[in-house]
């Protein structure tokens, strides 16, 4: 009885689901090859993304890309994983940069972009992509496995009005960490703002990019690019010194901790904090909300550290191609054509200007430059300048560490305990390395015997 009822329920469900899938597209486009694109952009960014996709669909008559919003980055990732396990993975999924190693290790689940482009016979020149962007999503041999999409990099934003009130030169932003500290102290002493300095994305900015800029390893094996047996190295003397300095700044009141991930963002446009280290993609929000004069510059560094400053590394997301049982070649070709479309100079420049993310290609940057965009909007090119400041070294190519989201949280947890005075900077980072390595070993074991 129960079985029959269950069977009935299943039948009804399947019928409904089937109808829902068929109805909206049944008319007119039956002959088009359709591919699904799962993404994590809502609001203004989501609109730009959907417009880009609509432009592609309108540009030709053979292929149709359907963008579907799946929630935040981690939610999109989990949704794609669950769909893959059910044999119904989307063709394209937007995946945040920290998921790179996880995706790359899932060899049967993804189709490397270089391979797909070759099989589809679509011309593909990796050298048009910015090296700092390309490197992050390439194998150790330099083959691109994912298509760069939205990339940003951390920069320093400062409030010129607060600088003026504190008697600082508003056109001379702090370049080194000691200068940042001095400026923040000055701002507090003059009460030019309720808070001197804050940071968003604590791990990404203060550890991942900090390591790249100072040309010190975040992890061994070229930050994991050369093997899954990499170990964290964020307890070096320079890292300890930096965390200790930030803890001191908290104690003296010149640094206000804004929380994990993007939580700190809010403190700058509101005028609360006069200096922030945050994503270059914060620009849209600053333009909209800030009621004061502001500008952005490179991330600060320690000028007594050898080799500093180097290029910073990216954050953001890339597009991954996923496999499914019996997926027709024609559908991969559709994806390949879509990738070629978004990498074209015009589309790349449009994306850059509309979203505030860096252009993924040099040609896109040139289009924006020729159109006078950087001249009319000073500071919009600081992200690109920071990413292309030097040629990426082994330490500034990016990170290739499994379960990096978990490692980011571990570092934030230990950092928070150091900020509360529960442990010293050295203890915090030793503990972060120990816990992070356990996470890396678990990841390595999952793929052992592959």
């Amino acid at each position: 009885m129960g079985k029959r009822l269950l069977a009935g329920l299943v039948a009804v469900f399947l019928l409904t689901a089937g109808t829902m899938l068929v109805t909206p597209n049944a008319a007119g486009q039956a002959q088009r090859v359709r591919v699904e694109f799962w993404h994590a952009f809502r609001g203004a960014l989501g609109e730009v993304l959907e417009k880009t996709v609509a432009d592609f669909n309108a540009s030709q008559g053979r292929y149709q890309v359907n963008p579907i919003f799946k929630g935040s980055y981690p939610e999109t990732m989990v949704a794609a994983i669950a769909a893959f396990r059910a044999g119904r993975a989307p063709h394209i999924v937007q995946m945040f940069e920290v998921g790179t190693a996880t995706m790359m290790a899932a060899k049967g689940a993804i189709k490397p972009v270089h391979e797909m482009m070759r099989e589809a016979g679509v011309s593909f020149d990796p050298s048009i992509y910015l090296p700092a962007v390309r490197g992050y999503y390439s194998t150790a041999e330099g083959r691109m496995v994912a298509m760069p999409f939205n990339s940003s990099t951390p920069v320093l934003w400062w409030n010129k009005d607060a600088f003026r009130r504190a008697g600082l030169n508003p056109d001379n932003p702090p370049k080194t960490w000691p200068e940042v500290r001095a400026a923040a102290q000055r701002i507090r002493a003059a009460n030019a703002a309720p808070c001197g300095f804050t940071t968003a994305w604590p791990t990404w900015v203060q550890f991942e990019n900090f390591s790249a800029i100072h040309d010190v390893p975040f992890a061994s094996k070229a930050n994991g690019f050369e093997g899954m047996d990499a170990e964290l190295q964020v307890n070096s003397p320079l890292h300890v010194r930096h965390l200790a300095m930030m803890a001191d700044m908290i104690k003296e009141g010149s640094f206000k901790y804004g929380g994990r991930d993007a939580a700190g963002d809010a403190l700058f446009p509101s005028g609360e904090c006069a200096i922030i280290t945050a994503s270059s993609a914060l620009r849209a929000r600053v333009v909209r909300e800030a009621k004061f004069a502001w500008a952005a510059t490179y991330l600060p560094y320690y000028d007594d550290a050898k080799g500093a400053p180097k290029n910073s590394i990216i954050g953001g997301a890339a597009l991954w191609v996923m496999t499914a049982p019996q997926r027709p070649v024609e559908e991969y070709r559709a994806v390949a054509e879509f990738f070629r479309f978004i990498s074209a100079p015009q589309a790349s420049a449009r994306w850059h200007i509309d979203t505030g993310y860096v252009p993924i290609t040099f040609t896109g940057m040139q289009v924006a430059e020729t159109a006078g965009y950087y001249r009319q909007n000073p500071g919009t090119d600081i992200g690109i300048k920071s990413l292309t400041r030097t040629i990426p070294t082994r330490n500034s190519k990016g990170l290739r560490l499994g379960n990096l989201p978990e490692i980011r949280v571990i570092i934030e947890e230990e950092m928070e305990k150091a900020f509360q005075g529960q442990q010293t900077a050295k203890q915090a980072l030793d503990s972060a390395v120990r816990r992070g390595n356990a996470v890396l070993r678990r990841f390595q074991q999952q793929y052992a015997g592959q």
Partner: protein
Amino acid sequence: MTRRAIFDNKLLPYLLLAPQLAITIAFFFWPAGQAIYQSVIRQDPFGLLTRLVWLENFRNVLGGPFYLQSLRTTLLFSGAVILVAMTAGLLLAVTVDRQARGAGVYTMLLMWPYAVAPAVAASLWLFIFHPAIGILGRNLRAVGIHWDYLLDGRDAMILVILAAAWSRVSYNFIFFLAGLQSIPRSVLEAASIDGADSRRRFWKIVFPLLSPTTFFLLVVNVTYSFFDTFGVIHSLTKGGPGKATETLIYKVYVDGVVNLDLGGSAAQSVILLLAVIALTALQFRYIERRVHY
């Protein structure tokens, strides 16, 4: 004509049970079975490589320093939420019960918070207590109290306890009120005539007669504080700072969904499953005996 309370049809009882059984199997036994299976294997997130590891996941979970810490956090959190939510509910119910006029209005107003979704409730608390943008948070700092739940584990704990308890006060209130109203007036009047003052009447008559309600609410509140407070914690602190507000349920989520450690997360689910079975058995065996119906 004889009335018989049994069915002739042998199939009918099964047919009547079928929907409930189907739901139980599909939404309880099947996922629970999956969790048990997942807890003894090690697998990459995509399910490409699977290896049987028996109890290694359990060893990792129980051997790590953070599980015990999370258990302590959970006990502290749940205990405080239950205490605050039930005391406040009872206090409000007693007050409204005494109120002759406008009791209906108070009841309605006090019920409203129950209609607020946990995530929305958490946002409201955030706007009150955020150290930089919250109304009360700023003022606390202005008068010299160092309030910062983003960095201070104790402050964060206080905040999630308040937010979680607040959502639950209404529910407790309405049940306590119903319980109070079902206490016969004659008993109370008799006690008054015997010379018992109001405090004595409460502890000697009202409170014992309320015990079925209290017991019911205790069970429901334990379940709530253990398993339904995810939304509040997720919206307010995400388990931080450090791991100060990471309860067992939140840890299952973090390890499974964020960290993609499916085996470890499944092992924790199985442990929780066993704990719930044990807790329920204990509750009904020992506490229920002391309850007067």
